[in-house]
């Protein structure tokens, strides 16, 4: 333990004295205040806060990720290249201890830097409303309910059994009416049908309507607010790109004796721009006592053929379930998990690759992990030969962490609740499984490596 800590201390000194950390600190110290002053988003206070936190955290995350990759690979490769390792491994230090020390050193520096930056972003964010000055009550309310909070988000459940049944039915019907369809592989035909059916569940024809049912909606109290967050996509442009819709919110619920308790039903008619996220706030009393809750949307625009609510951010229901502080803390832990993974990766790569190659490989991992969802999706969408690549590529992606899926800034910007369960899941998957496996591989390689062997 002594030796591990000695190596860790040395790594911290190295990081500080080669001024690697200083450069990043200066970058952020200059950039963050500038961003807090000049990023105004859509002009509203809410937009301004969302833009600042989103860009601030993304910048911090990106710079610290690069920093971690650089430092964790350099601290090992420099030791080998500059041969200080000769006097290190001939002391009573196992290679495991050496790599553990390097890792802990990088993790300590990362923790300090992250506390520094995340702390600054937090303080700036909560103080921006005060510095901006006079804002309307409505704006301030919006910030309180839609930003400086943590909300649970529920997505409409897609009934896949029902869809599967419908797919089978239409396939049977289609094949019956047009036998030439048998030439198409049934799997492909059904896949296309499935997508079509799924789209139908999210699409509204002119004058048509769509119903979503939510269960287990548990707001903190009756006086809380519930938010319906949605985005339209339209298949044909209208003049001003707006959609007129009629909304109904409400539920039927029963008491213990089975008698029906009527809860309030709300209706609203709105004209909203397409391709922009909107939120409708409702009193929590709209939710039934059993947590059930339904939404009906009617398309009142006749000049737009079809409205589609996109899959990812098209429709969700949000309600307050925690605080902004708590969410910010959990978000920072998720960011730290990312850095910890990269430190494990960097040390591991450096045990068998030279500095430039290790750094390049590390960066490839960072960028691939940041778009892992995109890669998986684009390959699965490609028909033909590339489709066969899906399995191996997805196998590789399994080894990578999913930075894009667990991006804390997307949670914080939309004030979505980042639960401890999710944080734990990220820590376990990203750090204790994927990262540790990589690192132990590095230890294995390093234990067998002849450190004095010159590799040209």
């Amino acid at each position, binding site marked *: 333990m002594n030796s591990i800590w000695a190596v860790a201390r040395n790594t911290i000194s190295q990081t500080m004295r080669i001024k690697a950390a200083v450069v990043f600190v200066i970058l952020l110290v200059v950039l963050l205040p500038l961003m807090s002053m000049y990023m105004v988003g859509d002009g509203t206070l809410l937009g301004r806060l969302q833009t600042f936190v989103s860009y601030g955290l993304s910048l911090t995350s990106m710079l610290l990720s690069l920093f971690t990759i650089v430092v964790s690979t350099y601290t090992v490769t420099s030791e080998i290249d500059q041969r200080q390792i000769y006097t290190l491994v*001939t002391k009573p230090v196992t290679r495991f201890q050496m790599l553990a020390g390097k890792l802990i050193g990088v993790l300590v520096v990362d923790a300090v830097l992250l506390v520094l930056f995340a702390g600054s972003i937090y303080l700036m964010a909560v103080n921006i409303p005060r510095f901006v000055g006079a804002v309307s009550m409505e704006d301030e309310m919006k910030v309180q309910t839609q930003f400086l909070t943590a909300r649970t988000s529920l997505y409409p459940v897609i009934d896949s059994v029902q869809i599967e049944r419908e797919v089978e039915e239409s396939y049977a019907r289609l094949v019956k009416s047009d036998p030439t369809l048998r030439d198409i592989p049934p799997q492909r035909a059904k896949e296309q049908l499935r997508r079509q059916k799924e789209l139908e569940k999210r699409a509204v024809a002119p004058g048509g309507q769509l119903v979503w049912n939510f269960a287990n909606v548990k707001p903190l109290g009756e006086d809380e607010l519930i938010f319906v967050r949605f985005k339209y996509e339209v298949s044909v442009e209208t003049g001003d790109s707006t959609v007129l819709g009629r909304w109904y919110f409400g539920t039927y619920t029963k008491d213990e004796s089975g008698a029906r308790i009527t809860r309030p039903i709300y209706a609203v008619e709105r004209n909203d721009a397409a391709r922009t996220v909107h939120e409708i706030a409702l009193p929590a009393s709209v939710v039934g006592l059993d947590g059930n809750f339904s939404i009906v949307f009617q398309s009142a625009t006749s000049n737009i053929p079809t409205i589609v609510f996109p899959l990812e951010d098209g429709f969700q229901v949000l309600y307050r379930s925690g605080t902004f502080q708590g969410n910010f803390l959990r978000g920072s832990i998720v960011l730290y998990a990312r850095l910890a993974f990269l430190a494990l990766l960097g040390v591991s790569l450096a045990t068998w690759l030279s500095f430039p190659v290790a750094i390049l490989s590390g960066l490839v991992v960072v960028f691939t992990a940041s778009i892992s969802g995109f890669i998986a999706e684009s390959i699965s969408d490609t028909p033909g030969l590339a489709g066969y690549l899906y399995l191996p590529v997805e196998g590789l992606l399994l080894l990578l962490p999913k930075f894009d899926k667990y991006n804390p800034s997307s949670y914080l910007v939309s004030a979505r609740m980042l639960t401890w369960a999710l944080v734990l899941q990220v820590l376990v998957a990203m750090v204790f499984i994927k990262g540790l496996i990589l690192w132990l591989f590095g230890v294995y390689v390093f234990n067998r490596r002849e450190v004095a*062997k010159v590799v040209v």
Partner: protein
Amino acid sequence: MVSGDTQYVVETFGLTKVFADWWGRSKVIAVDDLNVKIRRNEVFGLLGPNGSGKTTTLKMLLSLLHPTKGRALVLGGDSSDPKINAHIGFLPEESYLYRYLTAAETLDFYGRLFGLHRRVRQERIGALLEMVGLQGAANRQVGTFSKGMQRRIGLAQALINDPDLLILDEPTSGLDPIGTRQIKDLILQLARRGKTILLSSHLLADVEDVCDRISILYGGKVRIEGKVGDLLRRRDQDQILTSKLSETALEQIRDIASRENATIDISSPMDKLESFFVNVVAQAQKEAHATSGAISTTGISGFLAEEKPESLLDELVAGSVVAADEGEERPATEKVEVAEIQPQVDKGLLQDLSVAELKREESPERVDKRKPAEVEPPKVDKGVLDELTESPEKKTDAAGEDRDE
């Protein structure tokens, strides 16, 4: 500690290292079937021209390289075992140091690796920095040091654990003659304290002065191995050393020689350049010429000089080792401050070598541990000088023969 039943401190069995390229082709046999046995408390020299396999051998002993064939036992085991290498000190061919650490931090780092207690570390760092003459540069980053100063720190780090086995790869490379001299004195003094020392070098004079036994490597193979004295003695000649004789006495000696049918050559012995240089610098220092930079001492550090290694820690904790002299400002450049050194390899004389430093010392404990200062100017012991001036030729011969093979 070395286990009692181990006869040899270092023992190799058919140690072989073959370097292959990426495809496993164009092989270089760096070390070929090496069998070396080093007994405890021996100063063993590994000699050979560049590329003869000296450093490769040391690296295999230290588990920095894996042998292609054969094996090496160090202190009765595998040197990658922390239990074993806790008793090894190693100075690589160049002092590969963390440039961003200061001299004191460097030693502190290595001390921590041995799990030394903070107090012990502090004591030893002070003592070692003083021993290698860098107490004035303790808080300077070693990246700013000259090569010689880095070498000194390298040596200090090899001694921080008070090792039983000291492995020195070209210990005197990059050092000025006085630094070289100090390292040689230190080696001899450590040997007297029961340490085993394995050093590699191609600087033959250095090896000759300190080694009990040597092994000459060429092409990875041992050409010759034996005691230095045995290897270098000319059995067909005798040498007589006297103080200045009269012409008549010399005539009589010539007569005796011719009666014996022996050739005779009478001349005044020459001083060795190393001794001469050391004396000049010592003289300059005596006259208190302004100097700057690191201090060089020839005294051995207190904890290393301790007779009973077991009680070493206790003594250090008890504070018997005097901290570095802080009263004096040490300017930046490397300074060489020299003790009176008699140009003799006699181990008995080593105690006299810390004179200059001791004169400044005021702490009584410190003086207790060493012989008192000698004030009179250095006398040249002609007997020893003769021996020294005589040997280089022999040495050259030996090396020459070796290369011809």
